[in-house]
């Protein structure tokens, strides 16, 4: 087991709306990422996965507010630090964050090299323009981007190239953790594959120590990350290795998610996709007990009566359900069998 | 719709603007009900009477008199009567008579009079004084003595039979009348203008006319802009090309110059407020048309419009039901700005002397024009033009505030 780079304990953050309502979009989330490992976060839109990414930076601005919990990076607790210190010493050095649609955030009037100069300037690394250029050229070569990109304006780059450039700029200081929120969702499949390949290269080359990858596309997570965490209504409902979570999901919600995957492979046409009726609960006043109860096939009175804890299973796996892993696996197997009788 | 209105009225900016505008509107409606005089009747013989309460002298004399003993009455009377010119003349005399310049304080009536009484000598010959000057000082001294005396003034009337003057009574310096008992008192809060007309009454009616001009011009401009924008944006193709060409043509010609030329060529006789309003409306639709066209173009490719087409709706139905509601808020905002611009355009035209030519109705611009021609600004008669500027500014300010408030509600990106 490698060293734990990112350790998050019971992190809770909330949105405060214009009308003063509290919306707990990240509710007691704990996770660990070891050196050289990547973690995927999956879930439907509105489940809190993007908010979690934002919260992990330790840098909060309204309407997002920190409530409780700890974020520890390499032994240093960053929750509770002054926002300016977080911005100066944590972001870029320890954590690199790539938000959704990051590729559209590049100022169109500046050449790519200027953004890199800005990164070095912002972190008080006094380097001459020549040194910056040499460093940047070396880095771009290492991660498989053409050097010419440095002299181009963002508008001259294709979508996929722009996204890869943004990623390269954000990780040029070799952060401990890269948090990528849907980095490839707006791209066509070929560009998406190139982005993934680059992320792999960054991990393998040690340019980033660990990675958190957020997407709603499960086949992508399955192929990119070591572990997968499924979120539902602000909570973790299942955690485990990618293989386990995708092939033998435990939580009924994960089962539904995995059952709705459509990949162009032989056999897909013979199964019937699983469907989960209903919509996620409103987080303004989430239901007591299991938050998935209203949509669950196996719901029992006990589900609504008590708060369901995250239950640990052997091998670092965890899930949030009252049923035992055996009962859940059996139910899933039955579903899969039934789906083949299309 | 209800929800939208509620949102709009939650915006502080909009409400502030709305309150100011409504206050102006209410004044314009209620004031004429209370003061029924014709706003342009000439009541003053003379120009630019300053603001104040005007008490009828004739009625004061015949009103019941009350004797009130006030110590400072004489001093006040003289202070009020001695004007700056007289005071300067007194100083000149005193200096000539050998009083040190430093001792004389012309602002202090009491000490000045003391020095005068002690030093004045009508027979004294001051070097360089003309005969006319001497007579002036004699007159001045006499009138000061009258003011200083505690004797009353005798009132006399000619006997209709004999024609001889007969004493009818005296007015003592200590006599007062109660203003409420004087039959004729006229309050002129903003004085009179160059023609001797009550500025406040005139201002209220001018505001009403200017608002009407603004509404007519705004509605015409918005209507033309909206129709052309909708047609050219939705139809596209050759129709769009033609309309865009016309619009661009109007954009290249400066609107105000066009307005001046049209106004000028209409001729003085036919240039009433309504005609001017129509002319302003006809020359200011351009930006509305362009903006509406741009909005419609972005709307016409939206899926809900496509779906409406697929549901077999006619062009008229699609424009009125699927496009118009989406730009309605924008059009209302444009209308508000057009009203404000219309009022300003009328003021600008009128100042140049190209506004409505009328003696029946005043407009804000015409009031400015009259004040300008009779040099109110040079003579320091501020009441003739400053209130007009204030009203124009308040109308433009309130309308723009309403517009910004609505903009913040309808464009979430502008919300803070």
């Amino acid at each position, binding site marked *: 087991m490698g060293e734990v780079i990112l350790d998050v304990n019971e992190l809770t953050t909330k949105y405060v709306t214009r009308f003063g309502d509290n919306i707990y979009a990240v509710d007691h989330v704990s996770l660990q990422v070891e050196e050289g490992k990547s973690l995927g976060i999956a879930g439907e839109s509105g489940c809190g996965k993007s908010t979690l990414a934002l919260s992990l930076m330790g840098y909060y601005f309204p309407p997002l507010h920190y409530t409780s919990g700890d974020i520890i990076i390499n032994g240093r607790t960053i929750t509770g630090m002054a926002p300016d210190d977080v911005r100066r010493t944590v972001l870029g050095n320890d954590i690199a964050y790539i938000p959704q649609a990051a590729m559209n955030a590049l100022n169109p009037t500046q050449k790519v090299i200027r953004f890199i100069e800005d990164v070095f300037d912002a972190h008080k690394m006094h380097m001459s323009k020549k040194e910056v250029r040499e460093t940047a050229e070396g880095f771009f070569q290492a991660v498989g981007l053409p050097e010419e990109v440095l002299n181009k304006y963002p508008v001259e780059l294709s979508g996929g190239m722009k996204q890869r450039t943004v990623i390269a700029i954000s990780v040029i200081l070799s952060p401990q953790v890269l948090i990528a929120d849907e980095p490839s969702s707006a791209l066509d*499949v070929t560009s998406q594959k190139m982005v993934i390949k680059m992320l792999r290269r960054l991990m393998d080359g040690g340019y980033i120590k660990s990675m958190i990858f957020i997407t709603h596309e499960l086949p992508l997570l399955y192929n990119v990350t070591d572990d997968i965490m499924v979120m539902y209504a602000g909570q973790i409902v299942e955690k485990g290795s990618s293989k386990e979570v995708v092939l033998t999901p435990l939580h009924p919600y994960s089962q539904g998610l995995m059952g709705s995957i459509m990949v*162009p492979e032989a056999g897909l*046409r013979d199964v019937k996709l699983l469907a989960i009726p209903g919509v996620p609960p409103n987080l303004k006043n989430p239901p007591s007990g299991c938050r998935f109860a209203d949509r669950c096939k196996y719901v029992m009175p006990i589900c609504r009566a008590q708060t369901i804890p995250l239950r640990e299973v052997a091998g670092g796996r965890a899930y949030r359900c009252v049923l035992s892993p055996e009962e859940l696996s059996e139910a899933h197997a039955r579903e899969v069998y039934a789906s083949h009788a299309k | 719709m209800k929800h939208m209105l509620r949102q709009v009225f939650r915006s502080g900016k909009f409400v502030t603007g709305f309150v100011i505008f409504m206050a102006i509107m209410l004044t314009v409606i209620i004031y004429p009900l209370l003061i029924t005089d014709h706003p342009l009747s000439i009541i003053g013989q003379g120009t630019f009477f300053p603001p104040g309460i005007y008490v009828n002298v004739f009625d004061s004399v015949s009103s019941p008199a009350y004797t009130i003993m006030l110590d400072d009455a004489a001093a006040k009377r003289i202070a009020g009567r001695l004007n700056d010119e007289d005071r300067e003349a007194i100083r000149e005399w005193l200096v000539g008579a050998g009083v040190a310049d430093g001792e004389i304080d012309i602002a202090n009536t009491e000490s000045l009079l003391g020095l005068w009484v002690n030093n004045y000598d009508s027979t004294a010959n001051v070097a360089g004084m003309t005969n006319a000057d001497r007579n002036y000082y004699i007159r001045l001294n006499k009138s000061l003595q009258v003011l200083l005396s505690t004797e009353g003034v005798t009132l006399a009337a000619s006997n209709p039979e004999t024609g001889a003057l007969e004493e009818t009574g005296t007015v003592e310096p200590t006599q007062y009348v109660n203003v409420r008992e004087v039959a004729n008192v006229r309050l002129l809060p903003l004085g009179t203008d160059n023609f001797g007309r009550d500025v406040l009454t005139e201002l209220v009616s001018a505001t009403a006319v200017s608002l009407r001009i603004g509404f007519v011009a705004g509605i015409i401009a918005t209507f033309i802009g909206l129709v052309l924008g909708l047609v050219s944006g939705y139809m596209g193709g050759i129709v769009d090309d033609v309309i865009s060409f016309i619009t661009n043509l109007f954009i290249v010609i400066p609107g105000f110059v066009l307005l001046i030329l049209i106004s000028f060529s209409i001729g003085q006789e036919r240039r009433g407020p309504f005609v001017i309003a129509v002319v302003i409306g006809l020359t200011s639709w351009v930006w509305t048309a362009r903006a509406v066209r741009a909005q419609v173009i972005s709307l016409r490719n939206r899926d809900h419009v496509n779906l409406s087409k697929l549901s077999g709706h006619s062009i008229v139905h699609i424009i009125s039901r699927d496009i118009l509601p989406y730009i309605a808020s924008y059009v209302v905002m444009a209308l508000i700005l057009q009203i404000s611009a219309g009022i300003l355009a009328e003021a600008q035209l009128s100042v140049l002397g190209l506004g409505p030519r009328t003696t029946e109705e005043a407009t804000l611009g015409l009031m400015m024009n009259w004040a300008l021609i009779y040099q109110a600004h040079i003579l320091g008669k501020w009441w003739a033009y400053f209130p007009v500027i204030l009203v124009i500014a308040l109308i433009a300010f309130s309308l723009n505030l309403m517009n910004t408030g609505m903009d913040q509600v309808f464009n979430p990106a502008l919300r803070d």
Partner: protein
Amino acid sequence: MLNERKPCLQGVGLTKVFGLGRKKTVAVDNVDFTFHEGEIISIVGESGSGKTTLAKMLLGLINQTSGDVFFQGQKRDLSSHRKKKEYWRSIQAIFQDPFSSYNIFNKIDTVLLDCIRMRGGGSLSRDEKTEMMIEACRFVNLKFEELTNKYPFELSGGQQQRLMIARIFLLKPKILLADEPTSMIDACSRSTILDALLDLRNEIGMTPIFITHDIGLAFYVSDSVYIMERGRIVESGTADEVILNPQEPYTKRLISDVPKIREEWDLSTV
């Protein structure tokens, strides 16, 4: 069986050019196809492939620059509003973004009543119309009682898209063009939408045409697949042929670039 297939929609040399002179872009380039009644068709392409332009031409929302569309063997005539209306009784669409597909000022009832009127049911009594709307909503698992007098934006994306299908249920067209009907919908609701569409197909016997970038979806739902690249159809055939045994290099690349579960995803190809 194969010989009895009737063509319902045909394109011959269909071309759409936007702009003039140097700014000219050929969105759809000389496309030929024959869609048969009863089969499920998918047109697959990446963004910019011209698939949405092709769909709009088939719908008659934009005119083709050249080429012809044949509907049920007859050359399509859209010269007047009446003829267009007639055509749109037979061909309908579901769009990608449910949130922009509705007029936010119209209530849900208006949307459904429009469809009844389109089918010539304008003179029916209020009760009969309500009965039809209830039936349509029930078909897509929505409760009309909960929707009446509501506005579409009060519904979730999945519910809005199901309401779109209820609309099609009332219109009963012969052909349905579904332009990315599930791409804005969460994975869990996606199968609900697809199931409803496929049920509807069986119910009213229409020919669905899916326009999508998602090869997985195309493979899952369709009988025939057409792959579009830069305005041209580069490969077509049955779903199994095209997806499992692609011939064209573009199709091969497209399929190999999609992440897989059971097969190895080869990153070395890019």
